């Protein structure tokens, strides 16, 4: 996600202050990240997290990280509103299952490749990082699942 900051609007209150019906001061913590033309963004975040919690989170992160933090909160809030039971955890669950499924499929395909390679007496490389032969290309493996 990009990390560019927006400037607060001197005349137009930010979406947060508009929503909260308060004066948008020059040092408003929300103003850089909740422009007035995106009212829904703050409304969603407010509904799920609450203004004070968002304010605390923003104050805990570095200024250059705040835009990313707000955007991720907005994403989570929207996901939660669309799916009140699972929110974005539902997406995580789906993705994890897809990863497991693809890993299994890749293992099987690599096993088939090994079998063909041994039948033909040729060298080949497993995809996903494991090299069975010393020659040829093959892609550098990346650990799957390292966090």
């Amino acid at each position, binding site marked *: 996600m990009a990390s560019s900051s927006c400037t607060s609007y001197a005349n137009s209150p930010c979406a947060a202050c508009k929503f909260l019906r308060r004066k948008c001061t020059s040092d408003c913590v929300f103003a850089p990240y909740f422009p007035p033309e995106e009212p829904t963004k703050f409304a969603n975040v407010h509904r799920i997290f609450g203004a004070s919690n968002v304010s605390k989170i923003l104050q805990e992160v570095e200024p250059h990280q705040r835009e990313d933090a707000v955007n991720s909160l907005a994403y989570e809030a929207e996901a939660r509103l669309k799916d009140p*039971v699972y929110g974005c955890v539902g997406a995580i669950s789906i993705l994890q299952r897809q990863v497991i499924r693809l890993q299994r*499929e890749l293992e099987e395909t690599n096993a088939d490749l090994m079998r063909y390679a041994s039948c033909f007496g040729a060298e080949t490389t497993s995809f996903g*990082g494991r090299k069975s032969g010393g020659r040829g290309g093959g892609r550098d493996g*990346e650990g799957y699942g390292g966090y």
Partner: protein
Amino acid sequence: MASSSSNSPCAACKFLRRKCQPECVFAPYFPPDQPQKFANVHKVFGASNVTKLLNELHPSQREDAVNSLAYEADMRLRDPVYGCVGVISLLQHQLRQLQMDLSCAKSELSKYQSLGILHQSIGINLLGGGTNANANANATATHQYHHQFFPREQVFGGFVDHHNHHSGGSNYDGGILAIGQIATQFQQPRAAAGDDVRRTVDPS
């Protein structure tokens, strides 16, 4: 689900320092032996927001909702900038990588399979080629062709070069499944990630 008892307040009421009523909305989902769960959820979402969320749901859905909120809260506290979204981003990256690797592997496999079919068809031609004027020529060619499979450098050098083998698109259907019916498994991302690592993959 734990129910509030008259003696032991639930974790939420303990945290909020209030009397835990029999109808406490939090009590079934925040047992007193898991104080951190409510503390995290309270810190990220706030008690009143959680109450509103739970009240909007059918009772049968509330436990899953609380568990997903607890997971999100935990992730947000571990990673205040990205929270769960960081996990999603990482998984999407893993998925893209896997799709590419699978596509290449399948492409490679199809070449072997084609060779296998070709080899078989030549073998059949030999067996049934008594009336074929070119049977002898075929036999000779096949004999030579057969031996060509063994010297690695001649035939398989090209197949071992993977650098340019990026077949366009994967056959894998990457469509996202419907969210509604998923039985959520709230694994810790590091544990889940560790479980997902396959031994065939070299650690980076």
